[in-house]
C-alpha cells in the first residue's frame, strides 16, 4: 500500500474515531435524554481550542511556531494527557454554562433553536474578536500529542495516532455504554418520554438532564481535541452549523438512543456518503461537491424520518424473566444486539424464558 493511500486511510480512521466520540456524546444528549441540540459543534470547538491553548505555548517566546503570525488570549504547553483533559473540561464547562441557562426554560424545538443560536453566537465572537483565538485564520501549528516521546514521524506517527484514537474511543464507549444500561440511563430515557411522569416519581429532572448535557458536551470537547491533535489546525470554518447537521444525520440514520446504531451511522454518513462524492467526476464548479454532500445528508435524513424513524439499529429493548435477572440478561442482550445488526430488523428475537432485546 502506497504511503499516500496509507495517509488517506489513517485520516479516514481518525475521522471515524472523532465522529464516533462526538456522535456518542450527542446521542447521550439527544437520543437518550431527549435534549435536541443543534449547536453541538460548539462543544467540539471548545475542546479543540482548549487543546490548542494547552499545547501551543505562550503567545510570544513559546515554541516559536505561534510567535508573530497568530494571536490568542492565553496559552501554555503541558504534556499529554493534560491538553485532552483540558478539552474535556472545556466542553463540559461550556455545556454546564449553556445548560444552566437553556435547559430549565426551554423544551423541544425552542431548545434546539436556542442551542443553535448559542453556537452561532459563539462562532461570531471567535470570528470577529481576533485577539481571542486568531479570528477567521484560526490556530495552526498545534503540536501532535506524544510525538516527541514516541519518536515517530510521517506515516508511522499517523498509525500510532489511529491506535491512540481507537483507545480513546474504547474508553468513551465504556462511558456511554455504562450510562446506557444503568438505572441512570433508564431514568434519562424515562425523562425523554415524559418529564411530568418522571417528576411525579421523584426524579430530579433538571439535574439528570443537565448531567447528561454536560457529559455529552465533555465528549464533544474530547472529539475536538482528538481532531486537532491530528490535523494540527482549527478555525471557525471547521465548526459551522453544517457539522452539527452531519452529527444529527448520523444519529437519525443509526438509531436514536442506540450507541451501536451511532457507530453504524458514523460509518455510513460521513465516511461512505461523505467520501463517495469525492470520487465522482467533477460536475460544474468545485463547490458542488460540498453541496452534493449536504443534499445527500438531507435526503437521507428525510428518508429515514419518513420510512424508518427508529434508524438502522434501533434502541435496545432490555427484557428480563423472573429466573434471569441482571447477570444473564447482559449476555443475552449482547447476542441479540448482534442478531439485530445481522437481521437489520426492529423486531425482538426472544429466548425461551430468558431475555430479549433489540
Amino acid at each position: 500500500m502506497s504511503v499516500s493511500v496509507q495517509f488517506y486511510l489513517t485520516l479516514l480512521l481518525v475521522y471515524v474515531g472523532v465522529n464516533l466520540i462526538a456522535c456518542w456524546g450527542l446521542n447521550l444528549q439527544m437520543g437518550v435524554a431527549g435534549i435536541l441540540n443543534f449547536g453541538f459543534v460548539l462543544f467540539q470547538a471548545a475542546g479543540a481550542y482548549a487543546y490548542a491553548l494547552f499545547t501551543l505555548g505562550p503567545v510570544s517566546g513559546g515554541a516559536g511556531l505561534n510567535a508573530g503570525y497568530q494571536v490568542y488570549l492565553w496559552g501554555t504547553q503541558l504534556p499529554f494527557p493534560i491538553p485532552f483533559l483540558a478539552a474535556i473540561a472545556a466542553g463540559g464547562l461550556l455545556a454546564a454554562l449553556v445548560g444552566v441557562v437553556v435547559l430549565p426554560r426551554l423544551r423541544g424545538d425552542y431548545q434546539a433553536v436556542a442551542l443553535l443560536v448559542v453556537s452561532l453566537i459563539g462562532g461570531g465572537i471567535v470570528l470577529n474578536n481576533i485577539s481571542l483565538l486568531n479570528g477567521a485564520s484560526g490556530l495552526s501549528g498545534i503540536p501532535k500529542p506524544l510525538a516527541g516521546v514516541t519518536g515517530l514521524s510521517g506515516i508511522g506517527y499517523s498509525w500510532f495516532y489511529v491506535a491512540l484514537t481507537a483507545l480513546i474511543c474504547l474508553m468513551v464507549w465504556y462511558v456511554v455504554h455504562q450510562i446506557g444500561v444503568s438505572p441512570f440511563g433508564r431514568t434519562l430515557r424515562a425523562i425523554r418520554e415524559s418529564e411530568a411522569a418522571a417528576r411525579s416519581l421523584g426524579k430530579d429532572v433538571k439535574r439528570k438532564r443537565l448531567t447528561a448535557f454536560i457529559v455529552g458536551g465533555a465528549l464533544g470537547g474530547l472529539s475536538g481535541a482528538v481532531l486537532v491533535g491530528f490535523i494540527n489546525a482549527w478555525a471557525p470554518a471547521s465548526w459551522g452549523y453544517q457539522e452539527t447537521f452531519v452529527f444529527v444525520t448520523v444519529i437519525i440514520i443509526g438509531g436514536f438512543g442506540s450507541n451501536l446504531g451511532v457507530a453504524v451511522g458514523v460509518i455510513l454518513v460521513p465516511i461512505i456518503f461523505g467520501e463517495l462524492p469525492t470520487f465522482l467526476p467533477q460536475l460544474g464548479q468545485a463547490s458542488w461537491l460540498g453541496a452534493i454532500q449536504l443534499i445527500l445528508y438531507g435526503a437521507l435524513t428525510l428518508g429515514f424520518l419518513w420510512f424508518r424513524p427508529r434508524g438502522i439499529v434501533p434502541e435496545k429493548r432490555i427484557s428480563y424473566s423472573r429466573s434471569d435477572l441482571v447477570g444473564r440478561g447482559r449476555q443475552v442482550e449482547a447476542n441479540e444486539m448482534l442478531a439485530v445488526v445481522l437481521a437489520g430488523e426492529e423486531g425482538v428475537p426472544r429466548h425461551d424464558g430468558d431475555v430479549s432485546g433489540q
Partner: protein
Amino acid sequence: MMEMSVVSEGVREAEVSAPILELRGVSRQFGGVHAVEDISMSVYEGQVVGLIGPNGAGKSTIVSLIAGSLQSTDGKIFLDQKELSGLAPDVIARRGIARTFQVSAEFSRLTVLQNLLVAPKEQKGEGLFGALAGRRYWGGSESQNIERAFELLTQFGMLAKANDYAGSMSGGQRRLLEVMRAIMVGPRVLLLDEPTAGVHPNMIGELREQLVRLRNQGLTILMVEHEMDFVRSMCDVVIVMARGRVIAKGTLDEVRSDPKVMEAYVAG
C-alpha cells in the same frame, strides 16, 4: 371556608392523630377562572377518600395541586404537618406522595417492566458516578427491584406483558401500569386520577383487590373516580366537588341523597 374533616367509621381511631394530608383554603385561578376555590380538607392515615363530581368540578386540579404540578394561587397544603406549597413535584414525590395522571403518562418506549423499574427511590446507579461504577455496584439493588416489579405484575395479572413496550398497551393496561408504577415508589399517600377509566371490568376487580391490600397495609389513597361501584367498594369517605368548590361529604349513599349533589350532577 368550608372545613372538610373527613370522617369515616373505619378510621376514627386514626383521626385522633393529626391528618397525614391537609389542604387549608386552597384556591387556583387560571386567568379570571377559579378552577378550585377555598378548598379545605383533611385526610387521615389509612383512609381511602373518593373525590367525585361532574366534569370540570376541579377534582384533577386538586390532585395536581397536591402533587405540585400546579401551584395554588392561595392557601396551603401540608403532608404530615409540613408545608408542601411551592415545592417542585419531584420533591413532593420524594416526601411520599405518588400520583397517576388523568391522561396516561407512561414511558412509551420503555417496556412495562422498565416503567416500573424507573420508580423506586434512591436507586444505586441512578447518578452518573454510580452508573459508571457498573453492574457490580448497582446490580444487587436492581435485582431486588426487578423481583418486586415481577411480584406487582403478577398481582395485577400483567406478567405476560412485562417485556412489551408500554406504548403498545391498551388504554386500560396503561392505567394499571401507572398505578403499579406509583406503588413502586413506595408512597405514603397515593393520588389516583380516574384509575378505572378504560380498564376492563375483570381488571377493575384486580385493581380493587390490590388497592384494598395496600390500604390494609396503611397506605392512604385519594382518588378521583367516576365509577360509582368502585367508589362505593373502596372509599371510606367521599367528597363531592362542583364548580371548584366542595359541596358535600360523607359516604357515597349519604352524598347521593344530598339535593346539592343531585343538582350539581343534573346541572353539570
